[in-house]
């Protein structure tokens, strides 16, 4: 598979609204999760999860369906607050800042922790306006600046060459794989620090999937990535760190190589060898 090379220095648009960390000690982990418990109404779905997420690495969350990995992912950027009747306990930190208690308006944190969804969900707008949306809702109005970032984001997502002449066409004119890359470009446009991906390639054909996996490999140089996947081979290919979830519990986590070759828990081994799920 041909690897896409991006020669653009994508870090030349630095976010300047993010407060600098005044702590003398640099945090080891980009994000930390301590004793996370989560309820949908009266139904408890996450049990005392503690985990660390490493900067500039790809962390994969694996496990059988319904084990809570998507729910866990959504707690990382406070997306669960959109749904009524949910409750969470525990502490989640980004750069040592408690993202639930220290930040008043949840939308603030979502500009630093972005998300790409399982099923691509472009807006019923043009390709350009889709990418520009995140910039505009955050106050970036200058037309030339926006156009510049739109182009850079599309290049990063390896989509620019395919759409550069049809930027004003509806996003729905694109194929499934292209739409998903569009959504990735859209998330990249706001220059988050962490990107959460919920089964980003599960709805795509093998070629598109492979492209996305290559993309993830490149992106981790500048971003921290957390990806949920039910495809173990994908996890093994793409991630540096893997966490295994089962029925709302974090059974085991560690470097991907170790999890897949020398899992410590039996359940992990059973899942990896395909005995269930």
């Amino acid at each position, binding site marked *: 598979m041909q690897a896409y090379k991006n020669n653009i220095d994508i870090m*030349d*648009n*630095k*976010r*300047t*609204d993010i407060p600098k960390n005044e702590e003398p000690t640099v945090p080891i982990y980009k994000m930390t999760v301590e004793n996370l418990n989560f309820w949908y109404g009266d139904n408890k779905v996450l049990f005392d999860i503690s985990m660390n997420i490493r900067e500039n690495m790809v962390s994969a969350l694996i496990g059988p369906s319904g084990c809570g990995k998507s729910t866990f992912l959504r707690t990382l950027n406070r997306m669960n607050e959109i749904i009524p009747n949910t409750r969470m306990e525990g502490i989640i930190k980004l750069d040592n800042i408690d993202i639930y208690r220290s930040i*008043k*308006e949840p*939308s*603030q944190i979502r*500009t630093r922790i972005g998300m790409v969804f399982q099923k691509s969900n472009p807006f019923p707008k043009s390709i350009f306006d889709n990418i520009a949306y995140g910039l505009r809702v*955050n*106050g*970036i109005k*200058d037309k030339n*600046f926006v156009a*510049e*970032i739109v182009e850079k984001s599309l290049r990063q997502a390896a989509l620019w060459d395919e759409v550069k002449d049809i930027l004003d066409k509806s996003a729905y004119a694109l194929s499934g794989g292209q739409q998903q890359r569009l959504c990735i470009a859209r998330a990249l446009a*706001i*220059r988050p620090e962490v990107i959460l991906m919920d089964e980003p390639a599960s709805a795509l054909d093998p070629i598109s999937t492979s492209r996305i996996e290559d993309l993830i490999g490149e992106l981790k140089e500048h971003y921290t990535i957390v990806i949920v996947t039910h495809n173990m081979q994908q996890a093994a290919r793409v991630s540096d760190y893997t966490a295994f979830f089962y029925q709302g519990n974090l059974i085991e986590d560690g470097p991907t190589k170790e999890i897949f070759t020398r899992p410590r828990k039996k359940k992990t081994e059973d899942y990896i060898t395909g005995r269930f799920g």
Partner: protein
Amino acid sequence: MNELKFRPKSKIREFLGEKFIAVNAFIALIAIVLIFLFIFKEAIPIFTDSEIREEAGLDKMVFRQEFYEGREAKWSWQPNSEVPKYSLFPLFIGTLKAALIAMLFAAPLGIGAAVYSSEFAGKKMKEIIKPIIELLAGIPSVVLGFFALMILATFLQITLGLTFRLNALNAGIALGLAVIPIVFTIAEDAMNSVPGSLREAATALGANKWQVSLTTVLPAALPGIAAGVVLGFGRAVGETMIVLMASGNAAIISGSFLDSIRTFSATIAAELAEVVFGSAHYSVLFFIGSLLFVFTFIINFAGDMVLTRIKIKIQGKM
């Protein structure tokens, strides 16, 4: 190179925005409460003011009164005569007559059309029936009243040889026309909501299309159809313009449907213009308004509860 400086999110703006939207959302609730308060406020003197109670108290409105010495006690509504008479009974009879005729007319037609549309009609037919009903629903009640007054009344008088040109039958039929869309829509909805699995089960046991309808769909849809009839009745009781124009507006008590009638709503509409503010007549009109409000409130509450309960049951089954 340009810097990406995002505007910080204002929690205050979000908070104010949400509160503003919420306040507007409560207007519907506040309106109902205010309507209740202000209608009842003007009717209260019937119970509290001694002078008004003397003239038009609750007992005077309900029971037979001996208005003239020596003459027989009877019910009579004549607020503007020398001896003001405030019996509500003639108005009650009138309202009942009009609403009954309306339902006798609207229920069979509305339910029948709904059954045809839901159980017999092909796709093309359905697409013709729906606009017909919506067209009927779109006719303003003043136009239906006009139709009854100018055209229907003449027709009925000639065909049936009637004494009174404007009467309960005339108003009732026009009222029925106004109610048909309500009955039709709710009944058809009820039949469409019968789970397909029920129909399939009956078909699998060898029933033909009509047998499925008769034995499975109609019984299952019965609560919904009944709710439609009840809600239609509520509408018939509250309707004003049609009866105002087509019923003759005479507060007569009789058993015949061919006599003129006076309904509650038409009474208010006809007499509010000339009433003196603060008088007994004024309070009585608002009292009638309160009665109408309470009655339609109860009917709508009950009808909606039945329909919601049905919806929940269906969602449970599906």
